[in-house]
């Protein structure tokens, strides 16, 4: 275990369920208190769903593990109530440098435009993310976290799932409506259901090391192809909080795991990178060989798979943890809406329809990065080296240099929940995409107003055009008891309440620009802040239709959804 962090211990406590004469029932059980399971449980808890989170251990992750959290993930953490702590503790970075040999060939800025609450990335050890989410979970009524509760059996049937749990005081049985498997790359739930987890393994091994040192390097990502200090392989350097630095080194396919992870091997390598004079201490080391794989289905009846239990990727691009948290973000509101009978069960089929293409996208990106970094054949190496060579002189070749295409939120372009554009939008945020942020005149950020329910943004270049009839019709719009919170977005100089609708004043015109809304527009957002539909001119009926569709109520879709749901 790293020495730079003091590990909390969450004690096992006996629960009343262990003494119940028949298995206690819970609406939702989440298996695994990693970042994804915790995000899922906190999200459900905040939506008022009684949720039980089971974890086999009694502390947070051993080692820093996932360290890069992307802008969209930070926005989700904001909604869950842990964003500020994570960003304050984390190291913010937007810039990266790519070296070939010892020459800098390329520098990039991931967030070249300002006017976003959150940066492109923060680096923070996974144990802090878990630590903060566990604390947050403790503040939520109806969210029960049980440590040293290992799931040893899962039996789904048509009405629910029976779960057998092992504790230090013996086994007990539970029932739930929905089981969420967030139990990681070696998912036990996956094994209990006998589901194959197929994909592609990469031969190369990587040594990941966290070291503690006080060094005056900037907070940026540095990647080396063929560095002189590491014998033709690749290397990556990242800064974390607490003066901890992450170094990834590619090893040969046949390297001996044990030997390579030993201090006798790692310390000379680190000295070669950092210089003989730089004092440092090794905090944590791991040697791994990675795979890209995913389940064929992310849902088996009432069991849902999220995060690494559903899909794994190579680490370059930070697409594992970020995608997992976006899985939870996608699924939590849907489960809540179905359990509260505000949406038909068909809505749940959209989890796979949206997150399987997202997983495939992440696997494709990460496999391509890996192939670029570790050429598998003579021809691969020739083209890779040609690109690196040309990149020094030509910008076009820099765009081919692939040291990891860093995680961006997936756009659910083909989602059954989208209502396609009926009018022309040249740019802006298309249906299926996550909301874009923008600064507001009186402080604060657009993204924070969207919250965790359905929301509408009514872009009005002249708030006078908003008539009382449509405003009050909008306020009454609600599907199955789920209302839309509507905000008027007004340009600077056009402040003031409009028919009791709250007004967000667009500082510097960025919101109008980012949403292609100069001619007026209405955007409908889902509870995960993705766009469900957009309109040039606001009419109540199409908005109502889009709301129904976003809840899986669209009649033209319901037949196919029902088949997928039970298939």
């Amino acid at each position, binding site marked *: 275990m790293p020495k730079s962090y003091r590990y909390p211990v969450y004690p096992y406590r006996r629960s009343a369920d262990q003494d119940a004469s028949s298995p206690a029932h819970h609406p939702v059980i989440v298996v695994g208190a990693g970042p994804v399971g915790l995000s899922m449980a906190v999200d459900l808890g905040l939506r008022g769903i009684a949720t039980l989170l089971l974890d086999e251990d009694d502390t947070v992750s051993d080692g820093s593990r996932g360290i890069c959290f992307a802008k969209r993930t930070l926005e989700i953490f904001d909604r869950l109530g842990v964003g500020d702590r994570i960003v304050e503790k984390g190291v913010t970075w937007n810039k990266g440098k790519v070296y070939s040999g010892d020459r800098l060939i390329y520098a990039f800025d991931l967030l070249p435009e300002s006017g976003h609450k959150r940066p492109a990335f923060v680096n923070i050890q996974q144990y802090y993310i878990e630590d903060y989410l566990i604390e947050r979970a403790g503040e939520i009524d109806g969210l029960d976290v049980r440590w040293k509760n290992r799931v040893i059996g899962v039996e789904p049937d048509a009405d629910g799932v029976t779960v057998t749990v092992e504790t230090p005081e013996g086994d007990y049985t539970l029932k739930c409506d929905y089981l969420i498997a967030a139990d990681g790359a070696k998912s036990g739930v996956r094994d209990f259901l006998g589901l194959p987890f197929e994909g592609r393994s990469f031969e190369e091994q990587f040594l990941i090391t966290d070291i503690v040192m006080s060094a005056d390097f900037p907070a940026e990502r540095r990647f080396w192809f063929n560095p002189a200090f590491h014998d033709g392989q690749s290397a990556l350097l990242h800064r974390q909080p607490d003066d901890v630095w992450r170094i990834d080194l590619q090893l040969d396919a046949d390297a001996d795991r044990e030997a390579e992870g030993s201090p006798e091997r790692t310390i000379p390598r680190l000295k070669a990178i950092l210089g003989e004079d730089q004092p440092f201490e090794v905090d944590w080391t791991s040697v791994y060989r990675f795979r890209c794989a995913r389940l064929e289905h992310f849902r088996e009846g009432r069991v849902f798979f999220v995060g690494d239990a559903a899909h794994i990727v190579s680490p370059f691009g930070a697409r594992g943890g970020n995608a997992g948290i976006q899985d939870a973000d996608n699924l939590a509101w849907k489960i809540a809406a179905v359990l509260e009978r505000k949406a038909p069960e068909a809505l749940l089929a959209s989890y796979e329809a949206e997150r399987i293409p997202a997983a495939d996208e992440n696997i494709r990106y990460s496999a391509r990065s890996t192939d670029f970094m570790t050429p598998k054949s003579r*021809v691969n190496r*020739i*083209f890779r*080296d*040609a*690109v690196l*060579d*040309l990149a020094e002189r*030509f910008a*076009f*070749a820099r765009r*081919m240099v692939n040291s990891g295409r860093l995680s961006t939120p997936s756009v659910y372009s083909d989602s059954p929940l989208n209502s396609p554009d009926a009018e022309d939008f040249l740019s802006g945020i298309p249906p299926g995409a996550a909301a874009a942020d923008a600064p507001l005149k009186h402080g604060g950020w657009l993204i924070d107003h969207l919250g965790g329910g359905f929301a509408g943004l009514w872009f009005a270049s002249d708030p006078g055009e908003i008539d009382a009839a449509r405003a009050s019709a909008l306020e009454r719009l609600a599907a199955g008891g789920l209302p839309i919170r509507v905000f008027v977005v007004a340009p600077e100089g056009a402040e003031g309440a409009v028919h009791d609708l709250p007004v967000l004043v667009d500082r510097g015109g960025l919101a109008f620009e980012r949403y292609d809304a100069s001619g007026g527009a209405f955007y409908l957002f889902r509870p995960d802040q993705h766009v469900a539909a957009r309109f040039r001119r606001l009419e109540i009926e199409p908005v109502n239709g889009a709301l129904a569709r976003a809840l899986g109520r669209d009649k033209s879709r319901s037949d196919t959804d029902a088949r997928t749901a039970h298939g």
Partner: protein
Amino acid sequence: MAELSSDDRLDRPDDLYAALTDAHEGLSEEESTALDARVILLLANHIGAAGVTIEALRQARESVLAHREDG
């Protein structure tokens, strides 16, 4: 969508042929392949639309494989 043109449109075919072979003068096989890779990348960028180069790759591969069947 740009398409690969296979019309007869090269202005100085003999000069180009000579330049193609001259560029490899004195290079090892490894260096020759490295040169070809750079030329492909530079020309692909000049063309811009990746689809054109992808179509050229497909046709070139077909031509090479046809040989294999002949033999």
